């Protein structure tokens, strides 16, 4: 038994005995794996934990305490950010872990996250960045190009000396294939409140949350089986009514992401199970297989960066945007180059581009997995 199979079995609520003949390193490997998969804290609510060695139980509970303390600080910071953005006229929607922690997990500290993901309307992007800079955030990465990315990472050191990370998105995904799956107004219209984070905290409705959770692991993480992302999907599905599931299947089909959503849900059922109606989930998804799917190629695990570029080029319409995307990849803005390669003199800029071309060539053809 590997740490991963034990983790998955525990999350499926199965009897998952600690291996009797485990190597001395097994416990350390197990916790590394649990942290990598983002589920170390979640183990505290599994039935399996009760039968595991005392040292393992103590370590899980210690992590839960640490996470609960960290969540107090995160909650304060999230509320401050959302209130301030609202005061400056920017409507922001919480995405992914920072939202699901409050809307779907039994306790928010059971869903660890390194950052808060916020979505704003494309037109509000500049105002949002300016407002966040007023709160002490500064860009952690430099902008790589209008068609290369639809998000910007910011960070600040909070009053406790901790690094507070924030990902500001103006589209829900970076690959062109998925970038226009949702319009901000469409998500905002059906958004639901997150009262634990104040009156200005809103997130996606369950149907949109499910679609985005399935798209995210494929579009940004090479069809990853990271357990916390699959557990997110499990909790979203478990909390949905039959009608909501049917609507999710309809939306997935109409947005041509049915294959990606079906794959995410199917993998979730295999890896971390579901508390309710597996057959209903499968039936809802099975009956809507579309012919004109997008992004199905993203389900391949051996994709290289060049495959993503080709998919982006295919998804863009018109020669102009396609040439622009190629240019943005080949010749990113000077500010991006200075930050990435750590120089300030303009004389070094051509050398940095040459170095990027030489070093980056191999990366484009290597599979992500």
């Amino acid at each position, binding site marked *: 038994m590997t740490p991963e199979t034990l983790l998955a079995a525990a999350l499926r609520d199965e009897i998952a005995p600690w291996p009797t003949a485990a190597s001395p390193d097994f416990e350390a490997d197990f916790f590394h794996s649990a942290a990598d998969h983002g589920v170390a804290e979640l183990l505290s609510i599994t039935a399996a934990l009760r039968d595991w060695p005392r040292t393992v139980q103590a370590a899980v*509970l210690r992590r*839960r*305490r640490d996470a*609960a303390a960290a*969540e107090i600080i995160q909650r*304060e910071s999230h509320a401050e950010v959302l209130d301030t953005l609202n005061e400056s006229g920017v409507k922001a929607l919480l995405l992914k872990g920072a939202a699901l922690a409050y809307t779907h997990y039994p306790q928010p*500290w059971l869903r660890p996250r390194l950052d808060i993901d916020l979505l704003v309307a494309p037109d509000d992007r500049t105002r949002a960045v300016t407002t966040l800079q007023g709160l002490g955030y500064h860009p952690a990465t430099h902008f790589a190009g209008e068609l290369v990315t639809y998000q910007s990472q910011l960070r600040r050191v909070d009053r406790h000396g901790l690094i507070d990370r924030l990902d500001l998105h103006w589209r829900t995904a970076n690959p062109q294939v998925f970038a226009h799956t949702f319009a901000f107004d469409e998500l905002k219209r059906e958004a639901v409140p997150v009262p634990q984070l104040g009156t200005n905290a809103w997130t996606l409705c369950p149907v949109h949350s499910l679609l985005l959770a399935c798209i995210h692991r494929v579009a940004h993480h090479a069809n990853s089986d990271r357990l916390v992302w699959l557990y997110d999907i499990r909790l979203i599905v478990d909390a949905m009514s039959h009608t909501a599931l049917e609507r999710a299947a309809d939306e997935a089909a109409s947005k041509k992401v049915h294959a990606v959503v079906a794959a995410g849900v199917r993998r979730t059922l295999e890896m971390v199970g579901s508390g309710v109606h597996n057959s209903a989930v499968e039936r809802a998804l099975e009956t809507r297989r579309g012919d004109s799917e997008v992004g199905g190629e993203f389900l391949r695990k051996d994709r290289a960066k060049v495959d993503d570029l080709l998919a982006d080029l295919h998804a863009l319409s018109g020669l102009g945007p396609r040439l622009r995307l190629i240019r943005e990849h080949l010749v990113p803005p000077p500010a991006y180059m200075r930050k990435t390669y750590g120089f300030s003199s303009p004389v070094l800029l051509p050398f940095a581009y040459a170095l990027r071309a030489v070093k980056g060539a191999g990366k484009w053809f290597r599979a992500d997995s």
Partner: protein
Amino acid sequence: MRPISLEDAFVISKDAVFRDLDGEAVILDLSAGTYFGLNEIGTRIWQLIAENGTLKTVFDVLCAEYDAPPETIERDLLMLVSSLAEARLGTVT
């Protein structure tokens, strides 16, 4: 610092944030960014302090709830309150 007695009260700091974790608990001091872990009995004491404040009332409830000699309960209660005060999670009045 003068010795703490059951005649005192403990006023929880406004910077102390409490989270119940199914039996145990953590209290984070927002002003210092440090946190304090409590076991099951410590958690119960914190909750009673939050409800009542006066240590005599907390002591009476604990005596009714736990099958332990009153002197043991008093000693443990005063020891915990002293630790909480040292950690600046509140003040003894």
